[in-house]
């Protein structure tokens, strides 16, 4: 009891977060922030404290609360996006409210009329997190939005939120339920009418019942064939147009043959047909697709709204720089965008020369110049001097995700990957082999029994309809992607898993990838630096997002003010050159600044050299800390892969890294971004699958070119839409296990393919003889589909438990 009491004393009555030492109070309740207290106050005054009875501490913290201006909602055009109905008396509006999470939320939101007399009714759709409000047209839409904001449920007001919803929530599509319902209805009834056939009840299978059952089956199968199964035909046809045989092609072929053959059997009176199999297959495949869509829907929801990306931005607050998660950026925040960093949300240029590269958005990489006061759109990348911007539209996580999913310049790569994906490769061979077997069987019977030849040909195509094949890949990979996401390894799509499993060569970038950017020791060797020098160095390094620049910048006390550069240029792989009035400084590699390299003796470290007006002053010696478990990670990877280091820095740390990477030829230093890309290309020409792990900024080209590009993310805005996966630096040590898990997932798929081939062989044995009975088909096909789904689900579960259970720390 004691314990709970202290807990109650320190947590906020509204949201349950820990209160500061001196909590704000109202009556006898304690609150963590002013926002939470205000919400309580409002509710208390309206006698709505039921809110707090339904759940303990149901609120959302109001600490991050901001003053969004909702006035723009009253604009005629804008309001149309949200208003679903309006007349002289009332307005109906639907808002998307991500903060909704429990029954208290529902209660409060459905009792809005008690907070505001002009609200008539409000209704929650919890699954969609939508709130429909009917209110008097005497008040403005923005008043409603403000009211929601005041009680802690700000509506999500991205202008395209309505369009977004339709594709994101595909799995709630009503037509899917219609298709499923109809398929199930037909499946059940056809099965029932086929019972006499299954049991060979002659008195029933003789005419006229036989004909009646047959005709009824035919009637029942028509909606399944032409409505429920329509998407398989559409998809197969699309594949044919693009001259590829996708997985839906053999499925569509199988269904079509099944339907034609059964209709023929029924109307010619030669048999009872396979309508039962047809209906059950279509039903099961629809269930499979629905589940798959649901999984993907949930995944994309997690990605968009649960701060999926560990991306952070630099916030400027009273001249201080602060790293905050990109999602916490508010309208009006001032952000610092360094060279090569991404603009997270639409913003106005406030300070500096902006050259914005919109290649991630438009594919056009020529930078666009922007002048002060102009709007820069989200997704652009700053090239050159650091700029300051003021955010005018909140950062939308979903926009960044979308950018990542559908970046224009990478399209070729994913398209090509899709064609080479496991299931499509298998299905191409599969279709070919099946057609050969079918024709073979037909030719064999043609000599003796021409009726049987047709029978055999169609039977083969029916029995081999690869529904089990089609289900296994999405189920396995979708599941695997979800598990990896939980472990902070975020994949762009499921194809990445297949590629990851094939990895031959692992390339590591050095700085920022295998070193921790936060922890480094810095020392200056050379002439003593004046405060003016330090000022110049801090200003120059502060403009750059390069990990070494960040280290130098962070190590110079912030009391030293920064200056504005007249010109600033960062040459990747070399350094920074910046000019102020008559002074020009250079900060970068030794070769670039001194023109040659000193003779080094023994111990060498990473160095950043400094020269002012052509006069060499000395260098910073940086000893970086490697990530924990780096040794384990590399040793582990070396067991099965070739591991190489490609670094843009000098070879100062060669000696320390040598024991890790083994041979000297595995370590390449002084690599420009272009050389990195060339190396990836060269390895790929040797038919190797390359996994590139970089920090996402200086090696974007290589990340894009490699088969799998992983960007390791720490506390800096270095998310590059060019990568295939984002690895939170916390999970860096798990990398080898992620690769192993991908392999296991692919093995599960292969095994399930094997399993379904066995079923197919059994079926084929009946089919080629030309005596596939409807009963065999009706039993074999659904069993194969269901058992494959069960197999993949259990298989992935076992693999994840086996691979992720033991920890490195305990095992080593």
């Amino acid at each position, binding site marked *: 009891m004691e314990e709970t009491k202290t807990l109650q004393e320190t947590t906020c009555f509204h949201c349950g977060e820990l209160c500061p030492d001196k909590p704000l109070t109202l009556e006898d309740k304690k609150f963590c922030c002013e926002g939470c207290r205000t919400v309580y106050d409002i509710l208390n005054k309206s006698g709505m404290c*039921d809110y707090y009875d339904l759940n303990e501490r149901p609120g959302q913290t109001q600490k991050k609360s901001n003053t969004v201006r909702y006035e723009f909602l009253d604009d005629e055009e804008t309001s149309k996006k949200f208003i679903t109905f309006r007349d002289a008396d009332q307005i109906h509006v639907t808002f998307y409210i991500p903060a909704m999470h429990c029954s208290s939320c*529902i209660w409060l939101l459905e009792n809005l009329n008690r907070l505001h007399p002009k609200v008539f009714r409000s209704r*929650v759709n919890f699954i969609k997190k939508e709130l429909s409000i009917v209110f008097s047209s005497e008040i403005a839409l923005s008043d409603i939005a403000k009211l929601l904001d005041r009680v802690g449920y700000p509506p999500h007001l991205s202008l395209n939120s309505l369009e977004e919803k339709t594709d994101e929530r595909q799995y709630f599509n009503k037509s899917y339920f219609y298709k499923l319902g*109809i398929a199930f209805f037909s499946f059940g*009834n056809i099965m029932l009418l086929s019972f006499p056939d299954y049991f060979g009840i002659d008195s029933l299978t003789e005419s006229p019942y036989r004909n009646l059952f047959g005709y009824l089956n035919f009637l029942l199968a028509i909606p399944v064939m032409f409505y429920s199964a329509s998407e398989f035909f559409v998809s197969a046809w699309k594949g044919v147009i693009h001259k590829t045989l996708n997985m839906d092609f053999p499925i569509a072929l199988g269904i079509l043959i099944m339907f034609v053959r059964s209709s023929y059997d029924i109307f010619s009176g030669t048999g009872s047909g396979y309508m039962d199999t047809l209906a059950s297959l279509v039903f099961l495949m629809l269930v499979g697709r629905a589940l798959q869509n649901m999984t993907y829907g949930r995944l994309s929801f997690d990605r968009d709204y649960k701060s999926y990306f560990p991306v952070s931005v630099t916030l400027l607050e009273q001249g201080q720089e602060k790293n905050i998660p990109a999602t916490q950026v508010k309208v009006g925040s001032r952000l610092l965008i360094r060279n090569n960093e991404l603009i997270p949300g639409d913003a106005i240029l406030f300070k500096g020369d902006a050259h914005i590269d919109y290649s991630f958005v438009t594919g056009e990489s020529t930078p666009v110049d922007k002048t002060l006061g102009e709007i820069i759109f989200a997704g652009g990348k700053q090239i050159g001097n650091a700029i300051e911007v003021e955010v005018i539209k909140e950062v939308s996580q979903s926009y960044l995700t979308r950018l990542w999913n559908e970046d224009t310049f990478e399209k070729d790569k994913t398209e090509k990957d899709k064609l080479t994906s496991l299931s499509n490769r298998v299905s191409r061979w599969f279709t070919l082999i099946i057609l050969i077997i079918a024709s073979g069987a037909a030719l064999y019977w043609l000599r003796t029994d021409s009726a049987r030849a047709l029978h055999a040909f169609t039977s083969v195509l029916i029995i081999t309809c690869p529904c089990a094949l089609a289900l296994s890949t999405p189920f396995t990979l979708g599941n695997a992607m979800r598990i990896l996401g939980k472990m902070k390894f975020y994949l762009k799509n499921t194809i990445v898993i297949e590629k990851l499993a094939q990895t031959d060569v692992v390339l590591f970038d050095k700085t920022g990838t295998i070193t921790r950017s936060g922890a480094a020791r810095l020392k200056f060797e050379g002439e003593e630096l004046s405060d003016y020098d330090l000022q110049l160095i801090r200003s120059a390094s502060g403009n750059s997002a390069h990990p070494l620049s960040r280290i130098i910048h962070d190590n110079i006390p912030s009391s030293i003010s920064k200056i504005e550069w007249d010109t600033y240029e960062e040459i990747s792989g070399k350094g920074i050159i910046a000019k102020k009035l008559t002074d020009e400084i250079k900060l970068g590699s030794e070769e670039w600044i001194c023109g040659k390299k000193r003779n080094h003796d023994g111990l060498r470290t990473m160095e950043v050299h400094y020269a002012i007006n052509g006069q060499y002053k000395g260098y910073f010696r940086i000893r970086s800390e490697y990530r924990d478990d780096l040794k384990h990670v590399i040793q582990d990877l070396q067991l099965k892969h070739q591991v190489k280091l490609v670094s843009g820095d000098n070879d100062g740390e060669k000696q320390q890294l040598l024991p890790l990477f083994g041979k000297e030829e595995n370590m390449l230093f002084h690599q420009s971004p272009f050389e990195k890309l060339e190396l990836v290309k060269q390895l790929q020409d040797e038919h190797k699958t390359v996994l590139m792990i970089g920090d996402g900024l200086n090696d974007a080209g290589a990340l894009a070119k490699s088969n799998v590009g992983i960007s390791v993310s720490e506390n800096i805005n270095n998310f590059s839409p060019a990568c295939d996966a984002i690895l939170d630096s916390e999970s860096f040590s798990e990398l080898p296990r992620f690769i192993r898990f991908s392999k296991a997932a692919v093995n599960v798929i292969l095994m399930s393919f094997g399993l379904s081939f066995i079923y197919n062989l059994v079926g084929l044995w009946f089919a080629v003889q030309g005596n596939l009975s409807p009963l065999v088909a009706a039993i074999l096909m659904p069993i194969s589909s269901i058992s494959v789904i069960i197999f993949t689900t259990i298989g992935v579960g076992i693999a994840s438990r086996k691979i992720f259970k033991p920890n490195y720390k305990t095992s080593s």
Partner: protein
Amino acid sequence: MSALFIMIGASLIIAIGFLAAFLWAVRKGQYEDDYSPAVRILFDSELTSSKESKKESTNTTDDK
């Protein structure tokens, strides 16, 4: 045996009835939100109960 014709017809009609009911339910949006109705039904009774006594009971629980 001709009764079977009628029986089958009847069974199909019943089945179609259920299918129609299902399609109607989907169309009316009954499958869109399967969470809030379950919660909502509990609210109504709370709301009609007197606010005052409710409030007092909150205070007493919080005081201890």
